[in-house]
């Protein structure tokens, strides 16, 4: 179902079948980065030293970087053909990864959102994607940067969650009353903030982003106030415009529990999906009109990525579900005993 994807995956060496990457917990309790074919068949399981979160795929070479779950300090570069580890990225002292990263379209740079807790600031680590050296870092434009995407013009879109944590205190949120989340657009060289938008509700931690081919960003938020008063947790944004908040009718909206776990556009770019593992539902919206299209029941659903013209959803119970461009399920597949972790990443998007 994913012809276009396979072409997009580029490099001839890359397994023609690879469609998605996803971190998982195996039945043994160990963790792995799993490669999936378009029909969900497992192509490989690469062991990870600890729980993973998301991955970044190289646009030309069959390589990907798997990131540790926050507040992990490892990023593992793996060869997607042989499964061999190519390099291990380590954050500097006083800094940890946030579980996400992206490689520039020209294949030269890896950008990693990081928490510089020693200096209480958010940064993006900048790495050479050829030899995986750390080149330096730039400010992220806010606290708690979580997700990053490179746009067509090289500008970096960053989701700054706005929350400060310190690994010595687990993941406890240390500044909730004063948090200021933002979607920031950064100059990739200087880190200068070219534009930034903040959710109208300051306690909506803007955590995950996805981009459509035309540069529209979809952002998923996690509400830190009382769940019953949760506002919209999905927003769309285009440079120079205002943030558009997308919300379902009240009853359905409440089922999200104010928690957006992941966000994706459908392959045809017409739908935006936000998942809520806490609510056990995914919501689909029409990107053009902002209309609420459908609610999908799926316990512990979190991963979401484009698949064909539609979407693929994954959950902690081991299920994968494909949603067609009409919002209807087209297929599903279970791997008993396996838990798909937070994010699905399309390989070669």
């Amino acid at each position, binding site marked *: 179902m994913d012809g276009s994807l396979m072409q997009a995956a580029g490099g001839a060496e890359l397994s023609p079948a690879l469609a998605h990457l996803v971190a998982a917990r195996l039945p043994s309790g160990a963790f792995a980065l799993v490669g999936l074919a378009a029909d969900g068949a497992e192509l490989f399981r690469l062991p990870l030293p600890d729980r993973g979160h998301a991955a970044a795929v190289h646009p030309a070479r069959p390589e990907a970087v798997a990131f540790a779950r926050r507040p992990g300090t490892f990023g593992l570069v793996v060869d997607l053909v042989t499964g061999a580890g190519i390099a291990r990225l380590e954050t500097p002292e006083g800094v940890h990864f946030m579980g996400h990263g992206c490689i520039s379209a020209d294949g030269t740079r890896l950008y990693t959102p990081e928490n510089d807790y020693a200096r209480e600031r958010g940064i993006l680590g900048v790495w050479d994607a050829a030899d995986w050296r750390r080149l330096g870092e730039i400010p992220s434009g806010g606290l708690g940067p979580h997700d990053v995407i490179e746009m067509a013009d090289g500008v970096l879109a960053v989701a700054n969650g706005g929350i400060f944590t310190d690994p010595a205190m687990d993941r406890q949120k240390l500044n909730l009353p004063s948090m200021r989340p933002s979607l920031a657009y950064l100059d990739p060289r200087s880190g200068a903030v070219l534009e930034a938008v903040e959710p109208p509700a300051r306690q909506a931690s803007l955590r995950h982003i996805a981009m459509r081919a035309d540069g529209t960003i979809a952002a998923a938020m996690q509400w830190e106030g009382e769940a019953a008063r949760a506002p919209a947790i999905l927003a769309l944004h285009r440079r120079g415009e205002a943030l558009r908040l997308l919300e379902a009718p009240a009853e359905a909206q*409440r089922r999200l529990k104010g928690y957006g776990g992941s966000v994706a556009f459908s392959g045809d770019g017409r739908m935006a999906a936000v998942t809520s593992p806490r609510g056990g539902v995914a919501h689909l919206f029409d990107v053009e009109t902002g209309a609420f299209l459908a*609610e999908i029941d799926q316990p512990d659903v979190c991963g979401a990525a484009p698949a064909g013209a539609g979407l693929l959803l994954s959950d902690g119970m081991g299920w994968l579900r494909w949603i067609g461009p009409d919002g209807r399920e087209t*297929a599903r597949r279970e791997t008993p*005993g396996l838990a798909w972790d937070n994010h699905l990443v399309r390989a070669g998007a």
Partner: protein
Amino acid sequence: MPPDHDADREDDRDAPGAKPRNEALAKPRDGAGAKPGDGAGAAARPRGPARRGFMALGAAMIASPFVASRRTSAATSTEVLAKIAEAALETQVLPGHKRFASAAAALAEAAKGCARPSVLRAAYHRAFDDWMAISHLRFGPAEAEGRALAVEFWPDPRGFVRRSVDGLLADEDPVVDDPEAFHEVSVAARGLMAVERLVFDAGRPDLSGGYPCRLLAAIAADLARTAEALHVDWRDSHAPDMRRAARGEGVIYRSVEEPPRVLYTALMGGARMTIEKRLGEPLGTFDRAWPAKAEAWRSARSLRNVELSLQALSTLAECFAPALEPEALKSQRAGWERAIQLARRAPAPLHEAVEDPGRRFAIESVQSAAETARERFEHLAGPAVGISPGFNALDGD
């Protein structure tokens, strides 16, 4: 109410671990790789005004394992689930928050103009006692705005409380004169641990007047405000909603299963806090104890907090009685009772006992008894309320 604070005690917060339980979804298994459009699957529910291209699939939904999996184990009836929530509200949640709000208000009153040290200390201990009765209820109102942490900033391995409080003192920051602004200062400079730093620390400032007195008053007033907000949120919003959930009419708690589940999760988190943090942190390893990691050791509350937290957990566990067989109930009551007894008899203060090979053993016994009680509860009550913790739902990232 003011404790004889000869003993020392501690407290913490929860970090529920996710255990995989996949049986929920495994029930109506349709084999791997079902074909597109094979009918059984479509669980997309069209809602709202825009239905273009979306079919109503009500009948198909019912057959979906994704819906079926939400059901609690058939063994526990709706009536029993509602009873659990009602018992928790009546015996712990509502009276506990009311008491804490009133104790925090009394502390604020004592701090206003800086009462005599003995009065301040007694008011602090009463507020901390009352907090321990509810500190494990870290969802809903306590989760909003990070209120639980604003009440008690602990564990604090980096010494944020000292740093933040000392920073305000050094700068004589005028933020103390503006309650709205103070509500947004670092949580480490707010709450009970900040009060402890000012009232009990060996290097405490002179509280007879001036800036330290204004700071103390600001912290206590802010704490009272947070405690009142917790109380009001429970009384006006969460408790009524939990009751409506019994009839399937809840807005926050969407089904009759949800209240017992969040209470169960809170109980497990609170137990881990006591076992791993209140006891585990100061115990450290046999070769190296960490006395200064004990909770509220400056005010000699560490062991008292262990005992009070075990009592609070036991009270909440008792609310699950309607779901348990008589034998199971007996076993789980005995588990908590033993842990509480051992905590009561353990040698205080805890931060000294952990360093003394002769007394350390008694603290370890409390820890192991608490772990036994926790495991029994998990084993006996978890299945009764159909707990199947989510890998992603609990990750929170």
